[in-house]
């Protein structure tokens, strides 16, 4: 996500950096690039104007001109301003101290409310909350069925009265039931509605009045264009929403419009929805996202993700093995499975610092089928072969290829890659970080040396 915006800013700022000393016309040129990039990223034109104006003033200030490395300083300022634009540091949901916490979800049709409801329910249930959902979309065919299904998958109870009741009454009834059943959280799903539909906007206001939600969340599709600001303003008026859930962030939309929602309404983005599966939902971190836009890497998110998935003891074992140079194909298989649990690899690569600039890694979507093949090949080896790949001779290679439904070339390629990886690991253990070229080469398996942009 945001890949292209990050490219533009990086390209612009690397020019500024190369000059060493910053003149006013340098700043103007950089601002023009940033303005264009932001507009192309669907950031609302009003927001872009205000953003670059403030940015320029800060860039021309003494803190930049007097600094040893003005380019670096501009990066820092853009990062800070972008973080500000997206809502400062992260904010949590407000939970009620007594009785169920009510969260009302609202948004346009097709923005992803029902899915976001289930994801939020699962997210909160994981944190130990007893969560229920209220099915108040009586208009879209089968919306109630959908919520019942995905809610059930998320481990949340769904209060529904079919499609004949009034949504306001359903919401009030569900709240009563949630109180009786002693739920911690009630998430109210509502029908998608156009912000210009007065009747439905009034209905939303009535649901709000009756249920007195602790938080109203506006669900915003990350692909929304300039119209997002008008939508947000209307919803702010009718539903007085407190925060935003950004959906479909796993696509390649730059998501600028949803960011401008914050700038125009003052409401922060609380959650990011990033995939088809129910657990593809996370707290939104404006500060990390800004760093990511600038290509400084979202390392914190990556570490958090890894910590969630990787067993601590396994990690220690692995560390020990690396130190002793005892890393085997079996460990490689475990590692690969561990990493794949974190989600699609293409998403993870974007989070690594410096990788944003590596075209060949970015364009090349990581082929998950390739990884299946690697798994199959290793699984077709005997335990001895996995520990000591040196014994794999020609006839063993043939057998492995046959067993895994691949070709001997694939087996050869894997063995070669594994050898390269062990070499890199020995380097890392001895304290030398491998260069990006080496890392890329490891993935490409002897592909031509990639050209990496240098600063």
């Amino acid at each position: 996500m945001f890949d292209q915006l990050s490219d533009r800013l990086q390209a612009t700022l690397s020019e500024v950096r190369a000059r060493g000393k910053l003149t006013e016309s340098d700043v103007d040129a950089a601002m023009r690039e940033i303005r264009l990039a932001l507009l192309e990223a669907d950031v609302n034109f009003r927001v872009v104007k205000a953003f670059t104006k403030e940015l320029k003033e800060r860039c021309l200030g003494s803190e930049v001109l007097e600094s040893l490395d003005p380019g670096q300083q501009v990066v820092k300022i853009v990062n800070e301003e972008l973080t500000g634009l997206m809502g400062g540091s992260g904010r949590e949901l407000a939970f009620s101290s007594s009785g169920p916490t009510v969260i009302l979800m609202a948004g346009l049709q097709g923005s992803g409310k029902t899915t976001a409801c289930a994801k939020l329910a699962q997210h909160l249930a994981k944190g130990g909350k007893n969560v229920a959902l209220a099915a108040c979309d009586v208009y879209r065919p089968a919306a109630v069925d959908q919520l019942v299904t995905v809610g059930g998958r998320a481990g949340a109870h769904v209060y529904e009265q079919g499609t004949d009741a009034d949504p306001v009454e359903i919401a009030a009834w569900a709240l009563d039931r949630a109180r009786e059943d002693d739920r911690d959280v009630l998430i109210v799903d509502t029908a998608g509605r156009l912000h210009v539909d007065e009747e439905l906007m009034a209905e939303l206001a009535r649901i709000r009045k009756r249920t007195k939600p602790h938080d109203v969340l506006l669900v915003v599709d990350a692909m929304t264009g300039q119209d997002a600001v008008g939508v947000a303003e209307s919803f702010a008026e009718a539903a007085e929403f407190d925060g935003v859930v950004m959906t479909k962030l796993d696509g390649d939309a730059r998501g600028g419009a949803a960011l401008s929602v914050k700038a125009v309404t003052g409401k922060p983005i609380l959650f990011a929805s990033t995939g088809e599966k129910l657990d593809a939902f996370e707290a939104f971190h404006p500060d990390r996202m800004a760093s990511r836009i600038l290509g400084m890497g979202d390392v914190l998110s990556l570490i958090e993700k890894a910590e969630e998935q990787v067993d601590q003891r396994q990690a220690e074992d692995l560390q020990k093995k690396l130190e002793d140079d005892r890393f085997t194909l079996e460990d490689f298989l475990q590692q690969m499975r561990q990493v794949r649990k974190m989600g699609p690899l293409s998403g993870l690569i974007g989070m690594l610092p410096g990788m944003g600039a590596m075209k060949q890694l970015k364009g090349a979507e990581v082929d998950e089928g390739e990884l299946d093949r690697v798994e199959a090949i290793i699984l077709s080896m005997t335990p001895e072969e996995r520990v000591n790949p040196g014994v794999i001779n020609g006839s063993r290679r043939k057998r492995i290829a046959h067993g895994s439904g691949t070709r001997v070339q694939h087996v050869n390629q894997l063995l070669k890659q594994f050898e390269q990886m062990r070499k890199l690991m020995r380097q890392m253990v001895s304290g030398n970080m491998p260069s990006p070229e080496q890392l890329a080469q490891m993935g490409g398996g002897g592909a031509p040396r990639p050209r990496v942009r240098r600063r």
Partner: protein
Amino acid sequence: MVGVNGTGKTTTIGKIASHLSGEFGLRVVLAAADTYRAAAAEQLAEWADRAGAELIRSEPGGDPGAVAFDAIDAARARGADVVIVDTAGRLHTQGNLMDELGKVRRVIGKQLPGAPHETLISIDATTGQNGLRQAKVFADAVAVDGVVLTKLDGTAKGGIVLAIASELEIPVKLIGTGEKLEDLRPFDPTEFANALLAG
């Protein structure tokens, strides 16, 4: 019918089916090939009911290609005139899901040579610059013939279809202007241009 999640594929299919059966007296079969999203088939069933069309569906999680295959079979057996295949919404960045879509198209072509005769992508009028990318990737995967511009009843003008038409030469064929069966119209370039410039 293809497109990104939440752009209005199923609703559009309901409207097209109603139009074909109501105005032209054609027999329509709908194929619920969105076997992924919860209750997607139920949603399409409701539209089939409203439009007087027949529905072919499978178990949740079933093979979308098989649903399309069966639908064409059923349409042949019953002498139907049109089959409309609903597919699961997918982000164009999900390579495996785009491959799956290509497979559905190939299955349709094998089952009925020359089909699909029309592949439509639904684009949400509120979509920004990303719409162009969506259209391009979908066109690469399944050879899109036209755009249905949905949700034009809001304040969004759908300007991105201008880029889609000029860069990819994919015309807008239909516009969606509401949630009722009759809220579907042929695209009128003059009207669209006037609306864009109306400020």
